[in-house]
């Protein structure tokens, strides 16, 4: 298997509602895949299943680790999954408060994954934190400030720094620009694009914002009512949508 993550046949129902209906999706190293759809399409549920935070009723999710060994996510013990989330994977939450420790300083937030991975030199941890703050365009002088003194956009950038400090190969992002105003969104998207390019990250990005998908993603997966209705290269899907739902989506968006 050459893909980083490969999922097939994913199905999940919540009572009468079908959240996922025989969904298949893969992601290769260094590529950005956007999962788009309106609310209720199942895209957030898909992200949770792909990252091991929820279990499907049917289907498989295979993951290839840095050594090349393929693991089945659903059979993975909790310890390994947690270790994965702290090292090779990252998860950026829509609301930065869900992905940050609000009572811990910015430096502590970034340093936590390093310390969890065994880093024991205070000076080195602090230097790495300062470097990452600069990288996500937060003034390193704010290293001891608490996240609640940051604006929403800054909190989100801090969350990204916290997630990327251990150089994960795969990052899941759940509506990272949701709740931010338009100019802040644009800046954040630019930052993400630069980081993805610099670090060769693979990103699974859930968004309802077609423009963000066009800006960041190599490939796009369109979901509606739990099903994948269309997927392919971003420009192709958005410029020449085949499925009527995709056509509806693209025509209701002002082109960037």
């Amino acid at each position, binding site marked *: 298997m050459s893909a980083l993550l490969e999922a097939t046949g994913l199905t999940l129902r919540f009572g009468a509602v079908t959240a996922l209906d025989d969904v298949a999706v893969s992601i290769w190293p260094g590529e950005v895949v956007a999962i788009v759809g309106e609310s209720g399409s199942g895209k957030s549920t898909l992200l949770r299943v792909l990252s091991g935070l929820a279990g499907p009723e049917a289907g498989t999710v295979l993951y290839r680790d840095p050594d090349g060994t393929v693991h089945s996510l659903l059979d993975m013990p*909790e310890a390994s999954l*947690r270790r994965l989330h702290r090292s090779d994977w990252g998860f950026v939450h829509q609301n930065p408060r869900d992905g940050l420790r609000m009572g*811990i*300083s910015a430096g502590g937030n970034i340093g936590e994954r390093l*310390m*969890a991975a065994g880093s*024991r*030199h*205070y000076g080195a941890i602090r230097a790495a934190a300062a470097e990452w703050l600069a990288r996500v365009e937060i003034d390193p002088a704010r290293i001891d400030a608490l996240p609640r003194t940051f604006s929403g956009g800054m909190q989100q950038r801090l969350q990204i720094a916290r997630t990327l400090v251990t150089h994960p190969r795969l990052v899941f992002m759940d509506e990272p620009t949701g709740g931010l105003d338009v100019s802040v969104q644009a800046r954040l998207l630019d930052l993400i694009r630069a980081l993805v390019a610099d670090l060769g990250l693979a990103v699974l990005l859930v968004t309802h914002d077609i423009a963000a998908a066009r800006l960041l993603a190599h490939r796009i997966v369109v979901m509606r009512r739990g099903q994948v209705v269309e997927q392919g290269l971003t420009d192709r899907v958005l410029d020449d949508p085949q499925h009527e739902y995709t056509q509806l989506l693209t025509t209701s968006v002002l082109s960037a």
Partner: protein
Amino acid sequence: MTTATGYNFGYLDENTKRMIRRALLKAVAIPGHQVPFGSREMPLPYGWGTGGIQVTASVIGPSDTLKVIDQGADDTTNAVSIRRFFAKVAGVATTERTTDATIIQTRHRVPETPLREGQILVYQVPMPEPLFKLEPRVAETRRMHALADYGPMHVKLYEDIARTGHIAISYNYPVMVGGRYLMSPSPIPSFDNPKLDRMAALQLFGAGREKRIYAVPPYTAVKSLDFEDHPFRPIRADATCALCGSRESYLDEVVTDDAGGRMFVCSDTDYCNTRQAAREAAE
């Protein structure tokens, strides 16, 4: 066997002692790991040493000699109370000399006199969970220990240094046992932490109210958490014992008047008395 007072030897019934011993065996097999046990209501209140008492009651035998200290002293009210309790329900010999004891039950201190193989040190523990201030939910801390997920504790130390330049923990300073489990050494002053490392005696920890037991077998590595560039440093008052002249032991501060007058004396009364007697003998 029953004593004259009508209680079973050591107060607890034999099944309870067996249950506690099983917990102790598990604890010794997994150094630093907290083992839940069915703590019983004792005639002393929860928080006053019931865990330590239950552990002592389960390991004590008629040939043992028991020493009980609180804050390092044998004559503090709670130490007196507990010693009397065992004298009554176990009829064992008691002593104030650390060297003569086979079992030492302690609250908040490790004796200054180094312990030997064959001795048992029983610690009274109020809060067995080293992570409780960061995460009060027991279900979550159990998971953290199982997965060796101790990042938050290191983050706390980082925050202390970032805020004040120092790690801000004084007593109950967390330690790594056998390189695997994060453990609370009980509210001993951090000064005493180095004594736990590779101690020749068996160390047993009992938390009655929280209902957990843990242990450090003899000669086990016990390391206080720190950073390479902010290493752990034990602290004590920079003073000399006014009674025996020790500059090494942990000292109690005694306020002598309301104008700021103070003096310092050894917290470990047996150690201090022994030194004083030796000094007098030499004169």
